[in-house]
């Protein structure tokens, strides 16, 4: 790894051979009028082969921007996006086009992400046609069957004839046609009904097994992320707050923001009604990303904030493992897999 001067390798990046996607010091700026909004600021994380990384946070925290920046949509302002060791940000034109076939994306609104004028068959086959892949017909049939669509019944129909859940299946089939290695899912189930949501989540899990996918799963629903992810990264206002194994982060959140997020989940137990109030909770709203707070960006809403939090930006540090913890990483021995950016972790 060639570190740029002044930039050290972030702690949370793992030194493993099976890292498929590695993001280093990623920043994405948008110009809004005369202002510059830092949608993502100095974010580093990695995803190992076969892993699902959940990216969570409130709307406006930059989680979707990270997903898109991986695809170079648009290319990030600074930082690296290494796909199997190759920096996608340095590629351009044809080379990027070639490489990008291995990364595919699924979006939140399945209906508007399908061209209403085209037949399902053509939508799913488009990538194959563009790349002139052989045996298109059989491949289209195969992926349509894989996502639970009957090719004979649906191939000649158009998207408006399908429900949201069916359209999401078509989107998934389209993304799988080119046999990708990485699937980036941007809120894939938040536009779907509860009863259909479970179908799509199960389907994504099946597809991950069947096609050995590595997934980045962007979502705001923490229960959904808990279900699909191996690791979870929590973002706040463009910054990474906490990253670690899903079990560890959910059981022992180290960042006050993660704890607040988890405490916000509605309780399915009707008897908990009178215990609702009084929990430590967030005050106020997300500050403007155009003018983020100094030091720790979360400090304006943090119940534990102190003077230091305004002065100095917290760096990533390993979360101290308690004894009853399951051994997190057998291969590396002592190293923890759970990191937090907070001066006063919980």
């Amino acid at each position: 790894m060639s570190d740029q001067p002044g930039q050290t390798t972030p702690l949370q990046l793992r030194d493993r051979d099976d890292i498929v996607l590695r993001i280093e010091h990623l920043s994405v700026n948008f110009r809004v009028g005369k202002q510059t909004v830092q949608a993502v600021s100095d974010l580093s994380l990695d995803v190992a082969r076969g892993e699902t990384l959940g990216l969570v946070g409130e709307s406006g925290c930059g989680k979707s921007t990270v997903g898109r920046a991986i695809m170079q949509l648009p290319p990030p302002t600074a930082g690296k996006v290494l796909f199997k060791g190759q920096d996608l940000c340095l590629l351009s034109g044809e080379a990027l086009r070639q490489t990008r076939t291995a990364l595919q994306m699924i979006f939140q609104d399945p209906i508007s992400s399908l061209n209403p004028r085209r037949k399902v068959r053509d939508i799913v086959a488009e990538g194959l046609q563009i790349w002139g892949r052989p045996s298109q017909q059989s491949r289209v049939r195969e992926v349509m069957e894989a996502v639970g669509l009957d090719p004979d019944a649906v191939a000649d129909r158009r998207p408006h004839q399908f429900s949201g859940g069916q359209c999401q299946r078509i989107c998934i089939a389209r993304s799988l046609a080119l046999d990708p290695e990485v699937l980036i899912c941007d809120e894939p189930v938040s536009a779907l009904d509860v009863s259909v949501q479970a179908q799509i989540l199960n389907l994504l899990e099946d597809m991950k097994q069947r096609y050995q996918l590595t997934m980045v799963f962007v979502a705001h629903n923490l229960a959904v992320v808990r279900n699909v992810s191996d690791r979870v990264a929590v973002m706040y206002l463009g910054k990474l707050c906490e990253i670690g194994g899903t079990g560890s982060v959910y059981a022992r959140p180290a960042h006050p923001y993660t704890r607040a997020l988890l405490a916000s989940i509605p309780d399915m137990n009707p008897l908990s009604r009178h215990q609702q109030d009084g929990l430590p909770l967030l005050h106020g709203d997300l500050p403007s990303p155009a003018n983020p707070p100094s030091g720790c960006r979360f400090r304006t809403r943090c119940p534990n904030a102190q003077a230091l939090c305004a002065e100095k930006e917290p760096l990533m540090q390993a979360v101290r493992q308690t004894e009853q913890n399951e051994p997190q990483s057998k291969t590396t021995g002592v190293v923890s897999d759970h990191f937090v950016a907070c001066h006063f972790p919980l």
Partner: protein
Amino acid sequence: MTPREFKEQPLLLDVRNLTIRLNSAAGLVHAVEDVSFVLREGQTLGIVGESGSGKSVMARSLMNLLSRRSVAQRQGSVVLSGREISALSEREMQKLRGAQVAMIFQDPMTALNPVLTICVQVSEPLQQHLGLSKQAARQRTIELLDAVGIPDAANRVDQYPHQLSGGMRQRVVIAIALACDPALLIADEPTTALDVTVQKQILDLLSRQQTQRRMGMLLITHDLGVVASRADIIAVMYAGRLVELAPATTLFGAMRHPYTEALFNSIPRISDPGHTRLQAIPGRPPQLHHPSPGCAFAPRCQYAQQRCHRETPPVVMAESSIVSAKPTEHLHACFFPVAKSASGGVN
């Protein structure tokens, strides 16, 4: 409050056999079919259903907010505080809206008028219904904004909606709804457009205000988790019909309708280990243009038998509530009810 205490509360809303058919390009939509329920003062009734289950159409019809042209047929009675309101003229309804029944909508971005200040919008019902002067209404507006947790209300009052965040806008919408101290608040997906952290703030705010004002509340949502710990009674709707209705604790203790059970099981749970296989409901909600005979859920129901496809199950009292001494009303519309406990035990 326990169900027993509620029994003594006066009746606030009594909806009987409400049926609404809407015109659409594809034909008559059977949006609401024979829905009956009662709400007592100070109670929260949570109405749960997926999109297209008729819950919002029903809520709007209680306020007479459906356009005359779109409604093809409307039957049944709606009695609010002892007064039949389903046949009121638009003028009489105007007097009721905002004063006795208020509504909170899903999207706070579109529920507010972008070209009027917060002050003008919150003052309107105060001037209209309570006859306050402009000055007094302004003062009352600041108090209301303060009560719904808007910091620096005295300055915020002259701002426009675009200057507020989504959560703050929803607070303004709530302030408008509460302005005239309504007896009934209808909250139609009040937090769906908001972030989880803000969702909890808004739901807490609604609970607090409701307790203080002793309002009745209809909390409409697609999220079983939202109503589980907020509603006294939960009504589950599917394809325009009420399929199950019970006090929250009873419902989560023993779900009777297979749809309620399936809905509950399909939700990913934070307490489950990662990669737990979800129990998805096969198929999708039915179209309401040509309801087929029989139970609307039958095609997706794992317990469905022949009878379910032929006859529409009537709403009946659940057996356990007849046997038990507790005055809990547990209704369901199923020929072959299940007995599922939310804690996972199935008998």
